[in-house]
């Protein structure tokens, strides 16, 4: 018992490479935000300072999630999920609206986006569910967790927040793949999916806002662009492409500095970075992400129990999904669904959530006496 306590206090498992990679990516984010918002009107707190503040809060979240025992955290998975579902219901009625979607809860001068935190809690819920008992048969493997995911997913799609909704599905799918599904079950899911598609399409498509439909249509059929809604995608591609090999240098991004590219500090921050730092810079950023994910996967495979492995795998899957979809959409490979680039895009809820997730992931690496296993 004493051993366990002393070990818990130490810095065991505090991987300096891992933290270094995270900080390097955060620094790139702050730099890009600083560059793109420097023409911001005076009087308001600059975005990069606000982002630094979020990172400070995120660091606290990182340390808390790292220091706690993830077995203890997993025990709170269901109550936490119930709480976040309540917040998601609350946001539909009381939330503040921006760009036609109701996603934020105003708290004093700040606003808080519950759908971001819902993603991490979903990982906890699913990891807890699968590790608690051997879940046998497709009912326990697929349907029950699916029913767990459903209320959160529907509430998020209702806002509507397509990006967070897709992340939700991605976490579920990644967890299924991790625990393994019988090929029959996959067949079932596919069959059900195809049968339900017309209804689901109606529900999902019907719940989207005009701007989202137009963005998707503009992707599926570039000719379908009645009001110039392909503007985002085109401007983003021009920004990235015009960076060429070496980039235009800090503040040199005409696309973003001259406001051709909207949302330069949030969803399209990658395009800003690519324009100013070129292909070389982009490769460095991608390398940092791959390094971080690589270390995370290692932590997942060396986890001492199934809960740890599933937590780590779920968080990695979520991180990968966001990185790939965000870069893919700014580079014109996917439709624009509004997913921020983790650790880089400006945003309080997303930054804090991502750093908390990484803290939890590093937590899995800590040495512990196997009292429970």
């Amino acid at each position, binding site marked *: 018992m004493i051993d366990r306590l002393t070990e818990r206090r130490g810095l065991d498992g505090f991987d300096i490479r891992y933290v270094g990679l995270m900080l390097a990516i955060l620094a790139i984010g702050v730099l890009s935000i600083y560059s793109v918002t420097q023409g911001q009107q005076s009087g308001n707190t600059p975005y990069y300072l606000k982002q630094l503040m979020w990172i400070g809060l995120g660091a606290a979240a990182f340390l808390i999630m790292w220091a706690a025992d993830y077995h203890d955290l997993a025990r709170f998975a269901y109550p936490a999920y119930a709480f976040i579902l309540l917040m998601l219901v609350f946001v539909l009625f009381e939330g503040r609206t*921006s760009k036609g979607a109701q996603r934020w809860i105003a708290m004093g001068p700040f606003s808080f986006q519950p759908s971001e935190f819902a993603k991490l809690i979903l990982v906890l819920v699913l990891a807890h569910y699968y590790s608690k008992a051997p879940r046998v048969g497709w009912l326990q493997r697929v349907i029950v967790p699916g029913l767990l995911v459903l209320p959160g997913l529907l509430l998020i799609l209702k806002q509507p927040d397509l990006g967070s909704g897709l992340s939700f599905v991605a976490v579920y799918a990644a967890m299924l793949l991790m625990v393994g*599904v019988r090929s029959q079950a996959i067949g079932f899911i596919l069959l059900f999916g195809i049968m339900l598609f017309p209804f689901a399409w109606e529900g999902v498509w019907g719940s989207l806002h005009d701007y989202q439909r137009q963005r998707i249509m503009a992707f599926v059929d570039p000719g379908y662009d009645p*009001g110039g809604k392909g503007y985002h995608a085109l*401007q983003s591609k021009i920004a990235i492409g015009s960076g*060429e090999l070496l980039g235009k240098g800090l503040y040199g991004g005409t*696309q973003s500095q001259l406001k*051709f590219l909207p949302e330069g500090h949030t969803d399209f921050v990658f395009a800003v970075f690519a324009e100013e730092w070129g292909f070389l810079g982009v490769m460095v950023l991608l390398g940092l992400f791959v390094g971080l994910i690589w270390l995370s*996967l290692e932590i997942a495979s060396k986890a001492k129990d199934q809960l740890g492995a599933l937590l780590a795998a779920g968080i990695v899957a979520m991180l*990968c999904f966001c990185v790939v979809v965000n*870069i893919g959409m700014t580079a014109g490979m996917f439709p624009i669904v509004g997913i921020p680039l983790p650790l880089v895009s400006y945003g309080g809820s997303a930054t804090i959530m991502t750093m908390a997730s990484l803290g939890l992931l590093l937590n899995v690496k800590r040495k512990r006496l196997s009292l429970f296993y």
Partner: protein
Amino acid sequence: MLSTSYPETEFGDLHRRLFALRVGLLLVVGLLGLRLWHLQILEGPYYRDLSENNRTRQVLLEPARGLIYDRNGILLANNVSSFSVYVTLEDVQDREVLIQQLSELLGLDPALVRKKLAIKGSKLLPRKIKDRMTLRDATLVESRRLDMPGVMIQVESQRNYPGGLIASHLLGYVGEISADQLEKPEFDDLHQGSIVGQYGIEKSYDRHMRGTAGQKNVEVDALGHEKKSSVVEKPQAGNDLYLTIDARLQKLAEDLLGEEQGAIVALDPNNGDILAMASRPAFDPNVLSRELTAKQWVEIVQDEGRPLNNRASQGQYPPGSTFKIPMAVAALETKTMSPSSTVHCTGGYQFGRRLYRDWKAGGHGYVDLHEALVHSCDVYFYSIGQRMGIDVMAEFGKDFGLGRPTGVELPSERSGIMPTPAWKQKVKRESWLPGETISAAIGQGFVTVTPLQMASMMATVANDGVNYRPRLVRAVMDRSTGNLQELPAVPRGKVNAKPETFRIIKSALADVITKGTATRAKSSIVTIGGKTGTAQVAALRTGPEESIPKKFRDHAWFVAFAPVESPKIAVAVLAEHMGHGGAAAAPLAKEVIEAYMNLTTPTPVATSGLSGMSLDDGRGFKDS
């Protein structure tokens, strides 16, 4: 291998799957890398070319702000086109030459133009040099525009209040959004330069009237001139408001106050509709909705008459004898007095070592409740006040809505004070003195009220205790659907008193007009009930009213309702420093009541002075 599902082997499977994930990750990142290679290296020069020649800009299309009408559709606020001149620094060749040219053409101080150009921000952001230009100036600039690259004349929507000073306090005014406001979530669809309501209805109903901005993509040439544009999203005009006020009655009430300081509020007791809400002195919302110089602003704020203050909802005054109405209800309901029991008034009321005087030297003799109200006998109310105690008095005052905001849709409404010992302890950190109860009984001392509260109190009595929240907006016209949505009246509780009590009070109030302190409010066309009041300004006064400097003279109150049989209007008049309510305030209330009765009878009598107000849709232009 997918078919195994036992715990031990499962853990092993997990490792294999994680390996697969690594391979998958490398593949996907490789694909992203390839795509970026394609964009940045292979097609890089093509995109660099596009970025250098990128000449499309996104321009916001400001929505037209919702209009404001009175209850009969008379236009109170609309938008008119006005010309503004802008300069885009990006396109300017020689800044000093341009400053010289512009200041000569427009007759402006070169230093001012220089200052306006120096505002921080992107060089692409057009800076406004002058708004509300005359057509002549606009034409002059336009004809010289080719010599002055970067200069642009913009037609803009300017808020306009056709009635000028009419209803200025309740309409309010608009102005550019401030840096503080921009940080707040409720303004997050707006941007620097957006126009929002800053006062009055314009502020409290800003969300409804604001509308949604549209957007267009503009292709410009090297000099910044627009070559081609396509509208991406049309702006959505804001919703129109239909107020409860009758502009004709409003104008009359304001004219009655004239140069004097004061307020008049008229309510419909049956639903809380505010028919008129006048406050003098007023301001011109047309002036305040423009860009003011610091000097102009200081002049308005430091004006001794405080024209920005809405005396109807923000002015707090001792109610004086008008407070005897709720006190009379309290006396009957608590059975402190029966309607027939009397108090002997000898012109003063001895309490402890102090003599509390009646306004009438020598006193009123034996008076019952009816006579005490009709002749406004102070001694009667000193006596019942002392018997009921301050807490009971405050309870009834609060039932009538005193000491708390009425909830009218105006920013910064004041609540007045309905004092209690607990209040005094909390606010002044002193204990309550028994003599203060006696002053409070005739509405002096700590008691303060707003004219709006007094009108609402009168309406509640007229309506036998049923109270509606005073309101200013009766309907909202949704511009996107074209639906006119009528807003329901909002009940605000009921004073629990017997119908008999209200009957007794109302008959006494009717006699105040026929033979009491307010015979000057007697009307030949309608029966009126009312009560005079005098709010003491300075405690120690000697000599006749005329010999005192005006700013120390008392405020005159009059509250009234009509017709007595089935009330249709309740009025509160407060005239600052005008002395006794019966002389100064009562005639004004009578005029308002008579005008309203004339306006609402089937054959309307012609009203004067409002011929300049038109009924047409003055929305101006919608999209530009």
